[in-house]
């Protein structure tokens, strides 16, 4: 009887949604790619505080945050879009928006969440409050031909920039009227595989898989069109097998330069962020996947494709040299800096572990077990362009 009363009391309290008052600036989530769960974490205590299931196929899942940093929008591979309340640790809303998706983004004003899809190829825009469909832009680059969409990024002016893998183009869709987006097209090159926008929102870069080089669009002067940078950086010498597509998401502009993964080569390419000319290369341990700048731009952390995915290397942006080589665990998939970068969290999928490093000393600050962790996303992304 007492148990039942306590149970009833619990239901009653839960019904009132008694959430202790707190901010969300030190919260985040970790994707558990195999089990359809996310683990919610606190970057101050360096511990998980909740785990939520029922999110579907989360392989290659990613998350963006509402501008109040309370809600996470999680884009699953199976086309599921799930809105999670970080404070109440529950799913608020979930829709199946496509057959095969690859991530998403949130608009400058925070009102529109956009998913990028492989099948059917294109983007779809949703009201961030209700997840109601607002508009879609099919990636029909030629009559009857649809492309997979990659590299979606929010850019100023409530616009989204993205690239078409088969279509070989960069598209910019303006959602000033959320139900009637206006799209402009620019040539990119052969098989763009991912994209990023610079921290100031000015330049959109699409990495090319089918040829050496990166397509660049100046969003302040789009009428000037796109151009290619870092052409012929060397993959053409001998087409190297690429065991995992590099990812361009993440701020890789630091110390006035862009730090970019070379496709296939064991190198990080450096380009001057004013002239976009190559200024150097850094030899690294394997094929880079993520090349991520710390918030202050002093360090670049790099992880690698299989079979070198047990390593992480750190480049000092002042000297352009590798200053640290770490072995966080088996199958390192992602890294995320705390908001001001005193620590970085690293996911080691095959060790079922997240490891936390001090970025100054490179010592381990802690860690905990998570089931097949992949992406790590902190709420500090809510206030960043391109995240």
């Amino acid at each position, binding site marked *: 009887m007492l148990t039942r009363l306590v149970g009833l009391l619990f239901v009653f309290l839960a019904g009132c949604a008694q959430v202790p008052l707190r901010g969300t600036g030190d919260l985040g989530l970790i994707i558990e790619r*195999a089990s359809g769960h996310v683990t919610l974490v606190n970057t101050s205590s360096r511990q998980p505080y909740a785990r939520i299931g029922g999110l579907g196929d989360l392989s290659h899942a990613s998350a963006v945050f509402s501008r109040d940093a309370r809600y996470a929008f999680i884009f699953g591979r199976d086309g599921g879009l799930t809105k999670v309340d970080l404070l109440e640790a529950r799913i608020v809303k979930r829709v199946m928006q496509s057959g095969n998706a690859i991530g998403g983004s949130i608009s400058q004003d925070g009102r529109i969440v956009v998913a990028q899809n492989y099948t059917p190829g294109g983007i779809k825009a949703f009201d961030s409050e209700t997840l109601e469909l607002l508009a879609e832009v099919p990636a029909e680059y030629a009559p009857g031909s649809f492309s997979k969409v990659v590299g979606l990024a929010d850019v100023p002016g409530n616009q989204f920039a993205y690239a078409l893998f088969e279509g070989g183009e960069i598209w910019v869709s303006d959602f000033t009227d959320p139900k009637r987006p206006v799209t402009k097209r620019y040539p990119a090159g052969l098989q763009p595989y991912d994209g990023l926008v610079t921290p100031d929102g000015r330049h959109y870069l699409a990495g090319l898989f089918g040829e050496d080089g990166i397509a660049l669009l100046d969003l302040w002067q789009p009428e000037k069109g796109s151009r290619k940078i870092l052409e012929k950086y060397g993959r053409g010498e001998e087409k190297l097998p690429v065991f995992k597509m590099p990812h361009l998401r993440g701020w890789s502009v630091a110390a006035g330069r862009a730090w970019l993964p070379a496709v296939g080569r064991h190198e990080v390419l450096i380009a001057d962020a004013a002239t976009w000319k190559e200024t150097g290369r850094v030899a690294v341990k394997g094929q880079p996947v993520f090349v991520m700048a710390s918030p202050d731009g002093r360090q670049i952390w790099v992880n690698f494709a299989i079979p070198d995915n047990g390593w992480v290397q750190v480049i000092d942006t002042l000297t352009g040299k590798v200053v640290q080589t770490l072995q966080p665990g088996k199958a390192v998939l992602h890294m995320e800096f705390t908001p001001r970068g005193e620590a970085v969290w690293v996911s080691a999928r095959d060790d079922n572990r997240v490891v936390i490093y001090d970025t100054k000393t490179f010592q381990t600050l802690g860690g905990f077990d998570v089931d097949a962790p992949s992406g790590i996303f902190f709420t500090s992304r809510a206030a960043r362009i391109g995240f």
Partner: protein
Amino acid sequence: MRGLGLLPALLMLPALVVHADDQTALIRMVRQDCGSCHGMTLKGGLGTPLTPQALSEKPVESLIATILYGRPGTAMPGWKSMLSASDAQWIVSHLQEGFPEERR
């Protein structure tokens, strides 16, 4: 999971010679690493679907060659530095039947 695979040698292989430990590693590799392009459920992503419906009619030898040597002009790399011919043969036969889930 080691060794340089030679396709002609494969045709002389009497049967599947992949040990249980290696099978676990292969299942993990296909689900997780092949899955990064083909999807963890193998229904496709940047890469094509690897479901029985997609593969059962395709010739075994060409599928094995695709795994070991890649497909020029596409993002599919050759995996011969990481997989032997018998590994590739094991993967192909299991993909065509419906690939096992990882034991969790």
